[in-house]
């Protein structure tokens, strides 16, 4: 198994290399350039444009720009933002905590919602529970986050006054206040994932409930709670872990919308602003960091899977 993990980590190198080429090409293929956007409709002086392009090395051939960029990236330098002139690594570092907290918080909320709901819906066969479950998962999956986020703000912040918006105190300063201020955005982000994981949980629990070992557990007179939580859930959670791993990655991309609606200065917003302004260094840096995070999460899930499921033997 040790060999398997090492192999997976070595595989990351070509994957990240291909990603860097793809990221760089896509960013430079979109029409428009940062110098043009920087000047907007205020000036059209070609000399000024040329001076700005020269300053950021945008006048060099694209493959030269790539090699200069990758060389610096390998030294841990992501370059300077064209629009703000600040180091990209600093911009990214400033914003990563917001996105990570939002993602982890949402993941925790999604699991806290999905597993009990899914299990309940599998075990209790009465009409009301089924309706509630179907309603929750259908709405959760189909309502887009920019709409649900805006509605939550209007309902819980503007009308009920339960949550503050826009202000995000640091976790270290005041953990409770921090968790409270991040609740609405995390909940908005969690909903679609929660709905999906709940469905998988329900299906999976239903499947194991027909297994012979469950019948055995029941017939030897075990308490129903013990049957559900120890015998059924433990085995039903395997597919749930796989799906959760995939969703952990999707949650990272979901933060883009949620960060805009809730005005959270995270990585997603940094990336979107960079696209609009054609700030190549920032865009490349942000995408590279996000994609690396995504690959690492995938790796972690794969490794975790080996531990959880001893039936599967890799190499």
């Amino acid at each position: 198994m040790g060999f398997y993990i090492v192999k997976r980590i070595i595989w990351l190198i070509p994957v990240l290399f291909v990603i860097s080429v793809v990221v760089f090409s896509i960013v430079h293929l979109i029409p428009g350039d940062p110098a043009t956007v920087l000047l907007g409709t205020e000036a059209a002086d070609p000399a000024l444009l040329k001076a700005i392009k020269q300053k950021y090395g945008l006048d060099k051939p694209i493959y030269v720009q790539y090699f200069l960029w990758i060389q610096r990236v390998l030294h841990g330098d992501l370059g300077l933002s064209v629009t703000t002139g600040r180091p990209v690594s600093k911009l990214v570092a400033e914003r990563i905590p917001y996105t990570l907290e939002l993602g982890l918080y949402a993941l925790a909320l999604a699991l806290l919602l999905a597993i009990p709901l899914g299990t309940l819906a599998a075990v209790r066969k009465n009409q009301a529970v089924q309706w509630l479950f179907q309603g929750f998962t259908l709405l959760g999956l189909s309502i887009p986050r920019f709409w649900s986020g805006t509605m939550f703000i209007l309902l819980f912040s503007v009308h009920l006054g339960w949550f503050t918006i826009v202000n995000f105190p640091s976790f270290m300063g005041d953990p409770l206040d921090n968790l409270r201020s991040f609740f609405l955005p995390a909940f908005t982000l969690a909903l679609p994932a929660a709905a999906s994981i709940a469905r998988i949980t329900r299906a999976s629990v239903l499947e194991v409930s027909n297994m012979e070992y469950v019948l055995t557990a029941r017939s030897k007179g075990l308490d129903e709670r013990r049957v559900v939580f120890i015998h059924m859930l433990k085995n039903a959670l395997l597919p749930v872990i796989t799906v959760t791993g995939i969703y952990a990655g999707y949650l990272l991309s979901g933060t883009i919308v949620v960060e805009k609606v809730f005005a959270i200065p995270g990585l997603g917003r940094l990336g979107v602003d960079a696209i609009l302004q054609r700030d190549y260094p920032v865009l490349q840096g942000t995408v590279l960091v996000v994609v690396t995070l995504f690959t690492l999460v995938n790796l972690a899930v794969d490794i975790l899977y080996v531990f959880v499921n001893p039936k599967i033997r890799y190499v």
Partner: protein
Amino acid sequence: MVKKGQLLRIVGLLAAGLLAVGLSMTAEGPKYGGTLSIGITQQVLNLDPHVATAFSSWRVMELIYEGLLRFDKQLQLQPALAESWTVSPNGIEYTFKLRRGAKFHDGSPLTAEDVKYSFERVLNPRTSSPLRSRVSAIKAIEILSPTEVKFVLSKPFAPFLEVLPLIYIVPKNFEEKVGDPKVKTLGTGPFKLAEFGPDYVRLVHNGDYWDEGLPYLDEVIIRQIPDPSTLRSALRTGQLDLIFGFGVDVTTAGAFAGLPGFQVISVPGLNYSLLGIQNTRPPFNDVRVRQAISLAVDRRQIAEIVYFGRAAVAGPIPPAVSKWEPLSPSELPNYTRDLEKAKALLAEAGVSNLSFKIMPIPTVPETIQIAQVIQAQLKEIGVTAEIESVDFATFLQRWRQSEFDTFVSLNSGATDPDIHLYRHLHTNGSTNVFKFSDKVVDELLEKGRTTIDFGARKEIYRKLQIRIAEQIPFLFLTYPEIFAVMKADVKGFVLLPTQSIVLLRETWLDR
């Protein structure tokens, strides 16, 4: 019966109560202290006073830096870092006496050296300052004494004084002093930069400000909230005190109008919406086609539909700057809708089944709405306009390279007609993406900037307005009002037609 003691006590209480009411009523003077939180939808990118171009950057810089002169509420020039000035009769020499007691935020006094350095930094091509063309008339800067500086122009440049509020004064060797001027500042203004966070800027009171007694506020926080609906909610929930700028429009104003605890203010704007035309593309190279389009467009309807009536319909000079006597649409040729004449002009030009594309700015929703209204209006003279949707960077690239039939956008206006019009309409204008070229317009523009006498200039610009309306290089459409919404206890805040919030120096909180 009420006992004497009780009565006295009641009278005493009443008197105390009345006194308290009286005191609170007489306490009308501004109060010191407090933090004002402002929300805008755009990101503050760069604070280099001679390089930054973004709206959001200007709003922060104008609180930290100052020019030799400043605009007041009526857009009149007032002394700022210059106490007084004289202009030589031939309009070539401008002499400024600098403000005594003005200090930079590091405590060093303002000198003529600093003024010279600041203008030289703008003029230096290596700075790549977008302001450079505005001061390129300067031939020499002479230091007469530590507090007196003289500018010598290569030829008369009438709007020279109007440019000065935008040229911020920084100390000599500014770059060495601050390190990185994009994120560090050193100005003379009423506020100092305390913190430049990922999505906010925190400014604090400058205790050494030369205009004694100002500013009233302890702190100003300018926060970026990209979603306009979240911006409104944050004001409703009390997390913000003031919102303005992009996204704070007539709909926002309507949502807060009459809501207790909030006040909505509006001023006529200098910025205008336009339908840009590529003048060298057939059939637009025929002036009759451009006139026909102008005659077919109902500007009043655009103001009603897109701006709910909160926009002025006007020609080449903004109605907000009344001293230049802007001509109204009824006084201008081709600015009042006349479908028959439009059709006749098209027939005369031999154009039938005209169809072309309109490119709005995707990030500015009102330009899309304007394009839709124009599309419907042009249908009435049998012209087919197709709306072309591109992203912002592509828009800019095509705009810059004049790769369009027509486009709808917003242009920032200016108080002086030369700054307002020259760059767009002169054959060699820096933003003449319309590729418009007319000898008469060029001559009038040149005469307008080199004539010093105000009365004579006004007459030149009257002729120019009519010539522009005859030629229709592009369609001036509407000058929308600009809005700000704030809590009722924010006092003394005035928005300028330029969207400037520089009067925050006189704003206070009644808390």
